[in-house]
């Protein structure tokens, strides 16, 4: 029963939305379903917040390894919640009351977001530069024939993007201009790379249709959970 009812809802919703793709008057149903989804997600946020607090408070009270980080998380959670809910330090509070814009200039909420969260996120993102370098180093070692092809392609594209590459092959006469590094680089991106990407895309599209059919027909029910029938 725990799985049957969600499965019936899945079948009905799935078929209706598939048909709505081809029957224009049913198109509005898709918008309605999205609204239902948003309503459900509001409740899920409470569950998510509850989980976050539960896990981190358990860590703090049982003094598990690195419990200090959990304490920072809990404090951060409550500070931002209080600043957001009660609009503390919000300059618009005097005029607009609790309808004040959360991101009003000068509000403590916005200041903390801009001064703490945004730079920390940017720092994490910037790590990507170093990871790309280390990953490239491993990927471009010519260990086997596949890696060698990867290395040669990467070298051509890299040279094609720099003036050094263009200058190095600039002397080539027009009848072999295809082998100029910028043209080779363009060919690799626009032909070899694009063909591969499209092949993967077609596979993904088929996979999505197949997966959707399995879900709608009830062959795939793991995501419904809920124990036995």
């Amino acid at each position, binding site marked *: 029963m725990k799985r049957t009812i969600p499965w019936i809802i899945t079948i009905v919703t799935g078929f209706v939305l*598939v048909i709505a*793709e*081809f*029957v*224009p*008057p049913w*198109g*509005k149903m898709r918008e309605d379903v999205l609204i239902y*989804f948003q309503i*459900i*997600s509001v409740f*899920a*946020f409470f*569950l*998510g*917040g509850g*989980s*976050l607090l*539960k*896990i981190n408070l358990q860590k703090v009270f049982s003094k598990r*390894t*690195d419990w200090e*980080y959990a304490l920072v998380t809990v404090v951060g959670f409550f500070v931002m919640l209080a600043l957001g809910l009660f609009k503390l330090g919000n300059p618009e509070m005097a005029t607009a009351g609790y309808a004040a814009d959360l991101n009003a200039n000068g509000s403590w909420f916005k200041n903390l977001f801009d001064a703490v*969260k945004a730079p*920390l*996120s*940017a720092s*994490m*993102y910037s*790590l*990507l530069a170093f*990871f*790309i370098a*280390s*990953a490239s180093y*491993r*990927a471009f070692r010519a260990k086997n024939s596949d890696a060698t092809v990867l290395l040669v392609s990467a070298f051509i594209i890299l040279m094609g993007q720099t003036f050094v590459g263009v200058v190095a092959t600039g002397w080539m006469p027009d009848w072999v201009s295809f082998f100029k590094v910028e043209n080779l680089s363009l060919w690799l991106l626009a032909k070899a790379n694009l063909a591969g*990407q499209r092949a*993967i*895309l*077609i*596979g*993904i599209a*088929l*996979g*999505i*249709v*197949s*997966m*959707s*059919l*399995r*879900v709608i027909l009830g*062959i*795939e029910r*793991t*995501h419904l*959970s*809920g*124990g036995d029938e």
Partner: protein
Amino acid sequence: MTLQSRTSRNAFWPGFRLAVYGMMFGIVFSSSAVLSQEATAEVDNASTMLAPMLAPAAPGNVTVEDAPNDAGHAVIVTFSQSQAPADGQALVLGYEIYRSLARSGPWKKVGAVPSDVDVTASLIYKDAGGSDKSSDDYLPTETDLFYRVRAVTADSTLYSDSEVSAPAQAVGQWWNSGRNPVFFFVLFFTLLTLYFLRVAKQRGDSLYIRPLAGIDAVDEAIGRATEMGKPILYVLGLGTASDIATIASFTILGRVARKVAEYQTDVIVPCYDPIVFTIAQETVRTGYMDAGRPDAYRDDQVYFVTQAQFAYVAAVNGTILRDRPATNIYLGKFYAESLILAETGAIAGSIQIAGTDEIAQLPFFVVACDYTLIGEELYAASAYLGREPLLLGALKAQDYAKAVIVVLAILGVIMSGLGYEGFAKAFEAVG
């Protein structure tokens, strides 16, 4: 001699000075004359510019027709642009579209179109209104609608209106014929899947499916974690519960959780989305129950972290570096965080299995992980792990459909090469 010379010099100087003064006067006079002529010309030009300009030519041939393949509430307005401005006419900057329920008005501005450099080109505007009668942009269906187009210039007082169009109605269609190719393909694929489901029921799990190295590695990875006494980290990515990649990941998580419970090891699932978190929690719990070990499940195995992308990455990286999981499994939707996660896992020495349908992230996973499920392999993975006949049947149908698409693509290339574009156009979906 000297005296005479001085006398003649004295006689010379007044004349010379007179000549110089005369020349200077001439230059000044002629300059001032030139200047006054230029000034006069400028004044003339200015007076010409300030002269009242003429309104542009009116746009013409306003025709209105129902927008095809929709639920009504939309029409397409086509009109020819104003002719190129003649002397004194203001330049047309764009065209405003007005709609009315009666030929005589009142008129309501519904949109605007910038003018085209090529004034001979006709312009098209789709007036797609709302279906809610109480909204401002409501456009009624099966009601006569009149349109007129106004050519506007930089001067708001200079414009020209077209003739009022003939009445037209927005009519809803019950079938979107522009999507016929998609419909027929979905129908074909559904029938193919149903056929192979029937075959799979009859033949059990004896259907052959191509092997996937990444899936074969899952069992090995769980075994390794058990031997090492370390947990398995399962990351569902940044997708929401409505993403097919995330749904596919749930099914794999369920099977991984079951095996993990059987092997008596541990799985950690940090979640990015609260709905994904609730489903993942239920999925893992069910996996433990199916394995007959519901008591081994703990609530802190599946937990919500945050919906901030890089804060989530920081939390997962922290888990990788602190707990040193034996295996990291990344299956779902991933974006810029893919390489940060996978490289950290590689540094921690974990076996890594990844899979996503985000093409831009696939190279990162291929480089940093031991096994990668590319695109549709992610969707096929649950069937491989389950080995249930029905799932294998659906997979078989997917492979046959892929073969059909390959044949059609080759035919398309040949037909286009021969100059017959109709074949490719037959598969084009519109709207």
